[in-house]
């Protein structure tokens, strides 16, 4: 791994937040470099989603800082961070439910191109946007459902669209929060292959919250373990899975046996 010698794309420094007395994320310092998929794992309520929210600006931190390309993004709104290259796919699907699948993607592509403040030109004449959307629809396998309101898609379809929005935004940093949660066994691979493809195309910094160990093993270059808001382990998958503290905190029997098998 090149994390030691190159400037990290994303870095959190002593990042913390508490809700009332509850310390949800506590002094998390971590660096993320390009062309790396980092799996973020931890038990339910460990603070993984909250950590993402702090990075992408949905939630203000109570202490610490987030650096993007070495620059602090303190005080930036979520939209400014998104424009700067911090992309989110949410654990709880966040779509525009009554707009068509195609329009959901068009909105993202037009955001990326910075077309939002055009009042005069008909939106339908943005041919480049439509071409991009056409391509994206193929990639997430929703071309047939392009005109369906997003809210009427199956759960799996909605999850694919959630990932499609990330693809459409094409940010430098991609944060996936349990992208396959609730998907059936035959639906999940579509999403995982998409992430695999993004990874192979290169140039991205990917953070992935995931519970399934086989997924982590096949996708992740590195594992970071959060427990009760704290970073308790960080390293190569095999190393981390072998650590006693990690097993105790989270991984439990199933993973230990899986790790032993591999």
């Amino acid at each position: 791994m090149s994390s030691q010698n190159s400037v990290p794309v994303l870095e959190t420094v002593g990042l913390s937040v508490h809700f009332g007395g509850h310390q949800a994320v506590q002094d998390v310092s971590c660096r993320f470099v390009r062309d790396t998929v980092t799996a973020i794992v931890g038990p339910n309520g460990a603070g993984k989603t909250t950590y993402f929210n702090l990075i992408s600006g949905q939630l203000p931190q109570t202490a610490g800082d987030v650096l993007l390309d070495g620059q602090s993004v303190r005080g930036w709104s979520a939209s400014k961070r998104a424009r700067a290259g911090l992309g989110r796919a949410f654990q709880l699907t966040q779509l525009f439910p009554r707009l068509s699948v195609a329009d959901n993607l068009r909105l993202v592509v037009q955001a990326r191109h910075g077309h939002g403040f055009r009042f005069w030109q008909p939106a339908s004449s943005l041919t480049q946007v439509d071409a991009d959307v056409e391509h994206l629809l193929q990639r997430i396998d929703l071309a047939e459902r392009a005109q369906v309101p997003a809210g009427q898609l199956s759960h799996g379809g909605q999850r694919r669209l959630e990932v499609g929005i990330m693809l459409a935004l094409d940010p430098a940093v991609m944060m996936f929060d349990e992208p396959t949660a609730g998907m059936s066994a035959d639906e999940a691979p579509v999403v995982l292959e998409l992430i695999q493809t993004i990874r192979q195309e290169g140039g991205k910094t990917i953070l992935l919250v995931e519970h399934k160990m086989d997924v982590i093993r096949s996708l992740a270059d590195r594992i970071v373990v959060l427990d009760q808001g704290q970073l308790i382990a960080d390293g190569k998958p095999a190393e981390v899975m072998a650590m006693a503290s990690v097993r105790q905190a989270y991984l439990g029997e199933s993973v230990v046996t899986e790790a032993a098998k591999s």
Partner: protein
Amino acid sequence: MFQALRDTLPSNRWIRALLLIIVVGIVLTPWLFEGTRALDTAARLSIFIVLAASYDLLLGYTGVVSFAHALFFGIGAYSVAIAFDQFAPGFGVMAMAILAGLSVSLVVAFVMGLVSLRVKTIFYAMITLAVASAATVLVSQFYHLTGGEDGLTYRLPRVLTPAFRPFDDPLFGVRLTGKLFNFYTVIFVAILLFLLMVRIVASPFGRVLKALRENDFRAEAIGYNTLVYRTTATLLSAAFATLAGVLMAIWLRYTGPDSVLSLDIMIDVLLMVVIGGMGTLYGAIIGATVLLLAQMYLQTLMGSTQDVLGGWPILANLFDPNRWLLWLGLLFIASVYFFPQGIVGRFSHPRATEAEAEVRT
């Protein structure tokens, strides 16, 4: 323009036909219907269509609930009224009054937005309601300027008044007076304003407004500064309402709290948008027509129904013209019950969607 219309027009043929009938009916009113009452209804209708459409921009497209929309309508009307009351009527004065009205509206909308648009729904609604009521109090307090409860009656530039008669011969039986010129000025500007709004909702910006309505959290997360977009929508909508108010002041030659500022107007506009269909823009045309015609002619209609039913006292009593508000209420309830998405919303999908579906298969 045609592209924007194609993209936004409801696909349903009957709705389209209805829209066409209404628009043609308004434009040809002087030739189609007798009397000043019809002319007055048509002019008011075109103005209320602009007002309702501008409210739809906010409520239906952006999902912002405001009760201050009549306030901007009032600002537009009063700026023209006060100017014509204070100065000799002329087009220069009118232009200055319009600019002044627009500036005041934009400042008020901007301040209201800054204070409260961060929180989208109920708090903003309350603030707007408070500001709107404060405005009606202000109008009656500053009666030496505004005419108070009585309002202002003023003179217009001569070409816009019935006294102006450039031609002796009528055209196809209609006298060409300044009144007619006034009428067509109002209609022409109203159509222009409506088409401008069509352009806006069909634009990439219009698309973002719908995204805010659907899920502003997601809109923010893909890089749209929701506060800026919502404020811009508020400003645009206020500007259109102001211009509608200007038209009202020009048409009526009178401006008072009841004609442009009251909560009744706000409720009417709300009903027009809801009946016509939120987030459709064209719904404003149908909603305004239904409501205005009901308000203007329901009493007459009930009167004649009562005469017909003279033999059955109970039924006749039910159709007593004094009960027209009851029937209007029933009409609303029925329309909201049967068309919860509004008339246009119930019967349409944007045509572009269908066209693309065809391309794809």
